[in-house]
């Protein structure tokens, strides 16, 4: 489920619709206790539909550059994978039809109802290992573990539109784990997560109005101290602003989708090549262990054989390096264009966010003064 369903409306038009509708009438606030029904901030039908934000992964590139070669880490490619793989996870989660909007976001959103972050532990074409952490808005950790999988074959069936060959079992395992974690939570807890998410967002946007609705424990978890009134116009405004931000987030998410479909086939070639290199190296190591050279030790033939073994190994490795460069050359312009557009969208949000913050604080002050 996306924030805005149905035919795609131009981005700016969507934002305009959302903002023009922002109610500016002033009314007295009726405050509710924390254990009251939280209809002010959520709807009963959203209990199952927790929204998920998947942050761009941590590429898992060690700071120590001297380790990159040993660990077979290609930093630029890891950065690309860090943008691509969250999208594959997003597709896996969306396919379960058991979540609300599932979005890929460039930065972790601390007010997300459920924030999924990941680190690439290993990615060598043959195997993929990810560390996945999922934390809800209340600070509860749903998941923090490593998932590993073997790359699917080149002609393995693919469920997604882009045709990318991934390790379906790995992403399904993550999706299952998240579902299991959610199954352990009752409706009230899920409702609270949604409410806390909105209140954290509101607190960040209008701290004067929403600064005392949440309690934060020493372990970083949040609980609701009190809820805003059912008809609090500030909540309505916050929801509309969040809606506007979601439109931008969806536009960013769409950019990740475009990136994915544009470079998925090239990425597949890279992975396939990496897989072959790993297989070749494994076979060669076995061959070397079992090798019995007929040439007498110290003879020219024996020496050339030793030199050639090393030479071929190095040439294979260097060929891999040049293919990494070729991969970068090919996808570089697409990545740069996507980054520019995402940065543009984020810049717009940052600007608007500051303006919204100012407006809301002013409105709250006027409303409070009128009440008095």
């Amino acid at each position: 489920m996306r924030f805005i369903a149905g035919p795609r409306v131009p981005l700016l038009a969507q934002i305009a619709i959302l903002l023009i509708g922002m109610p500016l009438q002033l009314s007295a606030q009726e405050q509710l206790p924390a254990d009251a029904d939280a209809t002010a901030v959520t709807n009963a039908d959203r209990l199952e539909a927790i929204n998920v934000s998947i942050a761009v992964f941590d590429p898992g590139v060690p700071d120590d550059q001297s380790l990159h070669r040993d660990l077979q880490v290609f930093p630029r490619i890891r950065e690309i994978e860090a943008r691509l793989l969250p999208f594959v996870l997003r597709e896996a989660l969306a396919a379960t039809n058991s979540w609300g909007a599932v979005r890929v976001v460039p930065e972790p959103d601390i007010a997300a109802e459920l924030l999924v972050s990941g680190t690439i532990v290993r990615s060598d074409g043959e195997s993929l290992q990810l560390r996945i952490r999922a934390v809800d808005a209340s600070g509860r950790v749903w998941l923090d573990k490593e998932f590993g999988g073997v790359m699917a074959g080149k002609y393995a069936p693919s469920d997604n539109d882009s045709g990318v060959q991934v390790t379906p079992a790995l992403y399904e395992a993550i999706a299952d784990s998240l579902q299991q974690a959610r199954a352990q939570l009752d409706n009230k807890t899920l409702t609270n997560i949604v409410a806390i998410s909105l209140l954290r967002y509101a607190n960040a946007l209008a701290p004067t109005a929403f600064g005392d609705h949440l309690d934060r424990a020493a372990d970083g978890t949040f609980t609701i101290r009190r809820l805003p009134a059912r008809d609090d116009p500030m909540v309505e405004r916050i929801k509309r602003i969040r809606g506007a931000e979601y439109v931008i987030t969806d536009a960013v998410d769409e950019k990740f989708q475009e990136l994915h479909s544009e470079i998925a086939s090239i990425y597949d070639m890279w992975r396939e090549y990496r897989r072959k290199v790993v297989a070749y190296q494994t076979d060669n190591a076995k061959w070397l262990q079992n090798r019995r050279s007929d040439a007498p030790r110290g003879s020219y033939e024996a020496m050339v054989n030793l030199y050639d073994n090393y030479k071929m190994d190095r040439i294979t490795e260097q060929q891999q390096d040049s293919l990494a460069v070729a991969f970068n050359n090919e996808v570089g312009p697409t990545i740069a264009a996507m980054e520019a557009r995402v940065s543009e969208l984020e810049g717009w949000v940052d600007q608007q966010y500051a303006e919204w913050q100012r407006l809301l604080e002013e409105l709250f002050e006027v409303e409070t003064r009128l009440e008095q």
Partner: protein
Amino acid sequence: MKRTWSTLVLCLSMVGCSQNPVIDDEMMRFEGPMPADLSGSWERDYALDDEINAVLRQAYYSLSRTVPDQGYPGRPGVAAPSQKDISSLMALARLAELITRPDELTISQNEHEVSIARKDDFAMLCAFYDGVAKGIESVYGTEICGWDGQQLVSNLLLPDGLQVTHRFTISADRKQLRVVTTVSSSTSRIPFTLRRFYKKFDRPPSKFNCIETLSMKRVCSTGEIEL
């Protein structure tokens, strides 16, 4: 697969067995920028190269000098080396000649690495991080570099005690590069050394801009490349 630097040090001290490490700890460290800039395109200057038969004769003489004097045990004398010694020396000479065959070197250098690309052979890679040499190790051999003053020294240790060392020295006017290659083996009593000389040349600029891609291989254009 590649292992850590500590293993490499172990190999340097053990695999070499009877041979002393060519690159010691001091050579593997330097402060500031790299001691010399070897970058550029280099073509072989055959006129200055060692003549292999002359070197072989000299090596034969050296080998003869290492044969123990029968009259004065414990002292070297001059006697005909054994057939085994000659075969080992010939094998080293042939290998040295094979390895030093490339007639062109392309050396690229940045703050971390010196890469020496050779035709029909792998590119030698000398990596330094924070001024410390970072070796390359695989089941097939171990490669490590160091700086001996302004000379770049590359040492390759292969199984059976086979060792290939290159010393790169650039002339003061930066127009000439001398590469001294020494091949030694635990099966030979003396190493074999060949000197090759290279002169710098400027590669003419290409009329095409080319880049490598994964799906389209090499893509060239006379203008800007748009993928």
